[in-house]
Each structure stands twice: as C-alpha cells, then as structure tokens.
C-alpha cells in the first residue's frame, strides 16, 4: 500500500489551494447567478433638458433600488449604469456605445430629445438592446427598429392634435406655429395646417435656427402674417428668447407652448408680465394612481414631471419583462413587453408588486398611464393637462 509522505512542495500546494478555495466558490456562486443584470439610464443631465434628466435618472434608480431590496430579479442584483446625453445627439451616441459595448446593458431608458433618440436608436436595434424613450417625434417609432423601441410619450401628432384642438376651442381664428428645425417641426406644421383648413382658418408658420440670442426679425416676420394664436414649437432656451421678443414687439394674441419648454426655468428667467396668459400643455401623469404615488415617494416631491413618471415606468417595464422572459437580454424585454404591460393579468403598479406573481400574469399600469403599446411601440392612450400662467405661476386650466 502506498503511503502519502508530505513534501514541502505538496504542503505549499495544499495551503495555496485552501486559501484559494473561498474565492473559487464565490466565483462559482456568481456564475450560477449569472452576475448582476445591468440596465442603462441615458437621460439629459446637462444641456437644454438638464432640468429633467437628474429626476428621470433618480426615478429609475428608485425602482431598481426597491427591486434589489426585495431580492432582485431572476435571483440577480440589478445595477444601474447612468450616462448623460448632454441633450446632444453626438454625446448621446458616445454614451450609448459605452452602455452597450462596455457595460452590456439589456435596456437603455430615458432618452429625451427626439434628435437624441433618433441618433441612439440604430445602435440599440443593431445590438439587440431595448430602448425606452420619452421623445415625441412621429418618425421615431417609424424607424426599422424591429420592436426594440418603446415610448411612453404620446407621439408628436397626437400631442399636436390635442393642442391644436385646444387652440380652436379657445376661439382662435388664425393659427401660427413658430419653432426651431426639429424632427417634428414640419410634421406639426402640416398637421396644424390640415386642422386649420378643416375649421376654415388661416395658418402661418416659421421655422427658425436654434441657439440664436435674438429672434427679433423672426418675430417681425410671423407677426406680419397676423396669427391670433401661436403655438411655440421650441425648447426652453429658444422659447425664453422668443417670448421676450414677442412681448417687446407688442404681440397681443394668445400663445401656447409645450410644458417642457415653457417650464419653471422660463418662469424664473422672465418677468410675469411677459408670461401672463400663456397656455402650456403636456401629457399628464396618472396623478391618482398608486404608481404616481410611488414616484412621489422616490423623488420626494409633490408634483412629478411627466418624464420622471415615464422613466419610473421604463424601469418597471424592463424588469418585469426580464422576469417574464426569464433572461436579461434586450430581445427578451422586447418579446415580453406586451405580455406584462397589457392584457388580462393582475394589475400592478410596480415591479416589486408584480415579480412574485409574474407567472400568473400581470398587467402593468404605470405612473404615466396604462402603458399599453401598439405594434410599432407607441402608447395607445394618455391624458393631457393644460395650464395657464397667471402671476408668474402655471395654474391648472383643463384636463382631457
């Protein structure tokens, strides 16, 4: 019978193996779990959307934190990787490449400006990464995205339809549109021209160059046409300049602008006289919903902006889709999205609520609304909120 005689070499090898064993076991456990699941947030932390992006990111982080506290998804922790679009397509593309190539995220959430989403989208569908956006340009979901885009923001046509109908209801006789060159500019003008024609009204429009310090000549040009109700089609920076120029020029008609452009920043930057009576409209979050209350709690605010509400929904939709599909990939999220967001399942308002019963079927109702998607990734319905600026503050005017 052979006897084992320990040598110096075998003792050293044994000690090394003993020391290494816990690390090996840990590595095996991590392998069994597949490591953490990475999700990406790509919001405008700086640039013209910079006043929304941090809240949007925090809403996503809040959802992920809550799910991790409840045990994660598929037995795995979720890690949020956050990048800044700078509200610039070029910067956003660089950030998206990093999220996809380096971090390997299953989904990118929270792209805001339409130009940014349009630039990032091909990267996502080519790499089978799910893209959730809050952008409104009609063209976005018409891209050949093979199901890898879902947006919680009503498309531009729906938004524009609602605003133009409001202008008609408020007694407009001659509609106007003025705004910068954007992916939705011409579409909005065509849409308003059609509605104006249907109502026997005139319609004039002017597309200007963004990032100018003054629009005096543009204002002279649009005022020369004589509209009595103008829709502002720009973002915060150019809208601020434009409103000042319109007021100084003595424009006496009515104005309406999207709430993302005529926002608190504009209210802070301009005197109340300039802003008095301007209408704003926005897709309204579902303010009475349990999901909305969850976002209020996460952000610690009384009023949640529509984009943060939508980003809360993005995170919940992505996580529930991963759970339903059993895999943390963009393709799984795409394939499972409509399974968990619409149908006959139990209505849930968060992933934490839905994960334990995912096998029985869930129907996610979010902070931004029902979150039901059509075949090209557009939501099929939402509410709108109109406000009127009075004494320097936006006051609720109507809901549709």
């Amino acid at each position, binding site marked *: 019978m052979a006897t084992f005689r320990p040598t110096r070499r075998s003792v050293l090898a044994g000690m090394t193996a003993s020391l290494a064993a816990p690390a090996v076991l840990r590595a095996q456990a991590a392998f069994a779990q597949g490591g953490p699941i990475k999700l990406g947030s790509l919001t405008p932390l700086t640039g013209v959307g910079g006043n929304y992006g941090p809240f949007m990111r925090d809403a996503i982080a809040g959802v992920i934190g809550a799910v991790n506290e409840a045990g994660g998804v598929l037995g795995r922790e979720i890690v949020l990787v956050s990048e800044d679009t700078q509200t610039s397509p070029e910067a956003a593309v660089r950030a998206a490449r990093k999220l996809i190539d380096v971090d390997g995220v299953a989904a990118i959430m929270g792209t805001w400006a339409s130009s940014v989403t349009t630039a990032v989208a091909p990267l996502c569908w080519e790499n089978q990464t799910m893209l959730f956006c809050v952008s409104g340009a009609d063209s976005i979901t018409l891209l050949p995205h093979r199901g890898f885009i879902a947006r919680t923001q009503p498309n531009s046509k729906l938004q524009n339809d609602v605003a133009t109908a409001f202008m008609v209801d408020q007694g407009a006789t001659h509609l106007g549109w003025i705004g910068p060159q954007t992916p939705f500019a011409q579409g909005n003008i065509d849409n308003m021209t059609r509605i104006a024609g249907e109502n026997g009204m005139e319609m004039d429009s002017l597309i200007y160059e963004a990032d100018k310090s003054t629009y005096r000549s543009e204002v002279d040009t649009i005022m020369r046409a004589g509209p009595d109700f103008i829709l502002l089609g720009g973002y915060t920076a150019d809208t601020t300049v434009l409103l000042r120029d319109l007021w100084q020029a003595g424009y006496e008609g009515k104005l309406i602008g999207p709430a993302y452009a005529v926002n608190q920043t504009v209210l*802070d*930057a301009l005197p109340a006289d300039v802003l008095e009576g301007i209408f704003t409209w926005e897709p309204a979050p579902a303010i009475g919903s349990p999901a909305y209350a969850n976002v209020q709690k996460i952000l610690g605010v009384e009023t949640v902006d529509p984009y943060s509400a939508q980003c809360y929904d993005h995170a919940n939709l992505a996580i529930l889709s991963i759970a339903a599909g059993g895999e943390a990939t963009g393709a799984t999220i795409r394939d499972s999205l409509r399974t968990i967001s619409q149908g006959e399942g139990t209505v849930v308002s968060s992933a934490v609520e839905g994960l334990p019963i995912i096998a029985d079927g869930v129907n996610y109702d979010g902070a931004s609304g029902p979150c039901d998607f059509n075949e090209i990734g557009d939501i099929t319905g939402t509410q709108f909120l109109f406000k009127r600026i009075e004494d320097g503050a936006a006051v609720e005017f109507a809901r549709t």
Partner: protein
Amino acid sequence: MLDLLPQLIVNGIVMGTLLAIPAIGFTAIFAVLRFPNFAVASHATIGAFAGYAANVGLGLPVEVSLVAAFLVAAVVGVLSDEIALRPLRPHGALTTAIASIALTIVLENAVRFIFGNDLRGYDLPLVRDWRIWGVRIGPQQVENLLLALALMSAVFLALRYTRIGKSMRAVADNPALAELKGIDPIMIGRLTVFFGMGLVGAGGMLLGVGTSIDPLTGFRFILPIFAAAVVGGLGSIPGAVLGAMVVGLGEELSLIVLSPSYRSAVGFLAIVIVLTFRPRGLLGERAY
C-alpha cells in the same frame, strides 16, 4: 417681405454693432499674437456671467456691471493664456489655436460648474419697444448700442493716442522691429490679451443683456465673431467693425430670401465670397 426691409436693417445694425465688440478683441489678439484664439467663446460667456453676478448678485446697474464683465474676462484671459497658451506659441499658430479650443471647453464647463445650466436673465426693467415710423427698437437695444459705440471709440482712441496702443500697433506690424525699439513683446502680448478678452467679455454681456444667458452663450457667437474678423481682414480693428456689420446685416437681410433656419449659413457665405475676391479680407493689409 420688402416692407420689413427698414426693420431688418435696424436689427442688423444693432446686431452688427454688438458683434463688433468681441470681434475687435478677437482680431486684436490675432494681430499681436498671430493665432486665432477660439477661447473668445468662453470669455464671452465669462463676461456675461460676471456681468450677471454684478447686476443681479450685487444689484449694480448695467453700466457698472459691464466694467465687471470686462475686468473678469480680461483677468481670466491673461491667466488662462499664461498657463495654457503662451507655452505652446513657439510650436506654431495651429497648435495654439487647437489648444484654445480645448481651453474654451474647460472654461465653459467651469462656468457650468459654478452657475449650473439654467438660463439666467439680467435684472432689468422690461419695456415694450418704441415704434418710430413703423420700425421698432427697444430702449435697452439703444442703450446697448450706445455702450458698444462708447467701447469702440475708447478702443480707437487708445490705439491711436496712448503709448500702450502705439506699442500694440508696432508689435502687430513688425514684432522684431518693435523689440529693437525697446518694446517688450511679451508684456505687450499680455496687455493685448487683457484688453482683447476684456472686450470679448463686455461684448458677451451686451449680447446677453437683451435676452438670457447660459454656459453656451459665447459658443453661440463664435461663428459670427470669427466670420466678422475674417471678412473684415484678420488683424484689422476697423476691419472687424466692418466685418461685424456685414455679418450682422447679412444675417438679418437674408430673411428676405432665405428661411430663418439658414441664418448661420450667411456667416460662412460671407467668408467664402469675401475671401474668394479678397483673400486678405475687406480691410486686411497683410496676408497671414
């Protein structure tokens, strides 16, 4: 559209006059130091924010705030030039110009770090424009115009009659000869950057007073400023004024025939047309 012509001319003259101030600063620095300093973009922003801090933070009137805008941009200009650009100047104009682009990004982000991204407006009474024979002009525009004209006059008088101004002109004309005559080109370079960036800062504030400012304020003007200096003839102070008028009027009058979304193309077009027929610019005397 022709009925808008008088209004567009007035708008163009106002814009051209305001553009002339930073364009003078840009071209003066080019004349003496022989490189295009694209950091004027961030210095215009710094001037606008320094003026804002004086006007809103300290409650000072626009005229006094303009001095603050001049001084802060001038001091930052000299310090950043000493640290980032002067060591690179022996390596050539192109290297220094590229470094000035990097510098402007750093300074712009420093402003963003201190003030944030929000739009800010000066504390000024907002009043409706005056209408004179159907042409409208704002009281603030008139004040800005007068301030810009006063600054321009001061520059011309200083260059013509002061010892420093004469030294700057001498270095601009022939640095070697100026040095032989006892003029220190390094010190003159510093003074040029001080006054040049000061003008850029004051110009940035004047351009921002009528609207709102944010960290990209100066960046928005870099193309028209550059176009004004090139069209007028790089290195020529009167040329910068003339170039600014060409660009300012050109941008406004282009609305008669072009969509407003192409306004910036006018600056490029002016550069191409002028340089095609007169490579040294309208009033440039020296080909660089």
